[in-house]
């Protein structure tokens, strides 16, 4: 038994050390940095000067940061409702015994295997383009006027729709795996008792998917908070407030944008800490609100 313990330690220690060095150390360092005035991320500690909560005061006082948080909140709420609803709908349809299930499943998942850069370019150039984009071509064929899809007022929503399109397949697969775990007997019994499909969905499928829904909300939250590339693709050349999100704000603050020489690693760290707190808060709230341990099947 003693030998076994030593062996277990030998296997576990490298992993623990790696975790401590590559995860815990940067986390603690970022937290500490957020209370100091620091220009560059790797500046020597001797050049740091204590700044109290000024970094937090700076970012919370910034209208650009507040806008980025608002954008992130909108992506989480509106994008989340849309993505999870549509993916759940597709999952239910694909597990209902329709023909060509494998084809549809692969087709809906396909955007996930395409590079996000290619996806964003396709949406910007071929769907939203004012002159030859698909949407305006359809509108013009219907005798309607073209819309400035990527104008200041519409750009955020255009980006969100494009992002949701790519994300649906991923969440759909998770829902499908959850639905396929539910015993068929339950549906057969419900059918014999006279329950229609909608009742079966609301009384059996949905309650038994609570664990999966919890997982998906957590994944979506992480997905939203790390939303970087789509924002960058929809604001070419330099960051625009319409599509800015906190990680882009963090990046610009820490590294400076196009032709910007100002860097503020301390404020960047403060943004990172606030995002970490949000992730933790979402995780705890979802765990508290969505209970999945009261049903067994």
């Amino acid at each position: 038994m003693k030998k076994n313990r030593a062996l277990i330690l030998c296997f576990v220690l490298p992993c623990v050390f790696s975790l401590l060095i590559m995860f815990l150390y940067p986390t603690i360092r970022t937290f500490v940095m957020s209370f100091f005035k620091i220009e560059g991320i790797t500046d020597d500690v001797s050049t740091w000067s204590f700044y109290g909560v000024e970094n937090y005061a700076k970012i919370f006082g910034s209208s650009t940061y507040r806008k980025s948080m608002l954008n992130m909140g909108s992506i989480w709420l509106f994008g989340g409702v849309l993505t999870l609803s549509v993916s759940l709908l597709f999952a239910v349809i694909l597990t209902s015994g329709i023909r060509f299930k494998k084809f549809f499943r692969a087709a809906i998942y396909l955007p996930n295997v395409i590079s996000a850069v290619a996806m964003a370019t396709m949406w910007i150039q071929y769907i939203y383009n004012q002159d030859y984009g698909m949407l305006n071509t359809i509108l013009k064929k219907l005798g309607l006027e073209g819309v400035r899809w990527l104008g200041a007022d519409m750009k955020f929503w255009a980006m969100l729709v494009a992002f949701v399109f790519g994300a649906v397949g991923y969440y759909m697969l998770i829902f499908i795996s959850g639905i396929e775990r539910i015993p068929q007997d339950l549906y057969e019994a419900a059918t014999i008792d006279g329950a229609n499909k909608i009742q079966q969905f609301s009384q059996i499928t949905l309650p038994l998917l609570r664990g999966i829904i919890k997982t998906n909300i957590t994944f979506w939250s992480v997905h939203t908070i790390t939303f970087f590339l789509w924002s960058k693709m929809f604001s070419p050349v330099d960051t625009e407030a319409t599509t800015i999100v906190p990680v882009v704000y963090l990046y610009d603050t820490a590294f400076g944008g196009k032709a910007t020489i100002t860097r503020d690693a301390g404020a960047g760290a403060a943004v990172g800490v606030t995002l970490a707190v949000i992730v933790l808060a979402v995780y705890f709230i979802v765990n508290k609100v969505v209970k999945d341990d009261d049903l067994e099947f």
Partner: protein
Amino acid sequence: MKKKAVSMMLVAAMAVSLAVGCGSNGGGASGSGEGKKYDGVTLNYWSMWNSNEPQGQVIQEAADAFSEETGATINIEWKGRTINEMIATALQANEPIDVFEDGYERITAQYKDYLYDLTEMAEAANYSDHSFACFNEKAIEGAGFLCCITEQPQVGGIFYNKDIFEDCGIEVPTTWTEFLAACQTMKDNGYQPMALDGAYADFFFGYHLDRIIGQDAISDLAVNGGWASNEGVIQAAEQIIDFVESGYLAEGAPDEYPASQNKMGLDQDVAMVVCANYVVAEVNNNTQTELNWGLFNYPEVEGGVDPTNAYAGANSLAIPSYSENPQAAFDFIMFLTQGEWDQKMADTASQIPADPSNTAPAVMDGTIETLNATTDPLDWNMGMNDNADLKASFKDTIIRLFEGQFATGEEFAEAMDALY
């Protein structure tokens, strides 16, 4: 037994290959000839380009030619545009770098403490006669010494299709009034005067505002606010509102980059764009056309404080202060930025040569003269970027100005103040 022998041989082979793979290449002979000036010297070059880009290809060819001539070995690491995310850390960690590229503003402001003073070597090489004074002065002003050598200069202004101007019988305008008259003539002749992508809306407006109140005043407003109480801001916004309402923007502008500027090549009925010189190569490449390009300075706004200054920027080369071979690194920089290789870089990448005695490619006609005449170049966005925190919001508000969302200059100025 046989297995054991095979295993031993494999282990030996692996050890040898590891030893070879991990061995230092720093002090070894280059093998490119004996008695050359830099035999045995290895230079590590961090580039902001990728090896498949025209600039990267020229740099590689120049490095090979320099190696052949001097015996030095040049290891190029293609870091791409994100070099700015890693170079400061690399310099702090004394990474073995002998030459690196980045924008000169960042080099002079952020990395100066880690850089070699090039003053003496530059004097010995008579560098001032082969460079644009405005960049050298800016570098010395920012860092306190000559910390970098200009590699790829840029200049901003109004890039236009000369054929359209000729067709309309228009002379290059020098004042805002003349410019508006030229736009109207183009419109009357069935042309669309100005392309504009949202990405460059703040650059356009920054230029216009600079003409009225100057870059220092813009910087002050950007940092401290007070836009609505500045008459010049209101005047600039009113003039842009009039410009938009007159229909001088191309259809759909401000569009999503690069859709509007591409119309200059695709439709060839859009005459001008406010941008830096790389727009020429972008439009030509994107649309596979060869427009008859020209450049003129942003027109003077009557009664304004800055009638002539132009935006100028540059990608530059610098040498870390801990480099063991600064003279070899400097010689390579001179090799790349002057004479044959500078000309090749300008021709291949359609850009302005770093050495004014070289010739600008036809599409860059007029750029050398503009840069030579520039004494105090404007920054990108003419001071608005001095508020790094709000610049994204400035851009958004300015795009709305060009979209016609503000009825008056006061409304626009108040929207700018509301960002604080």
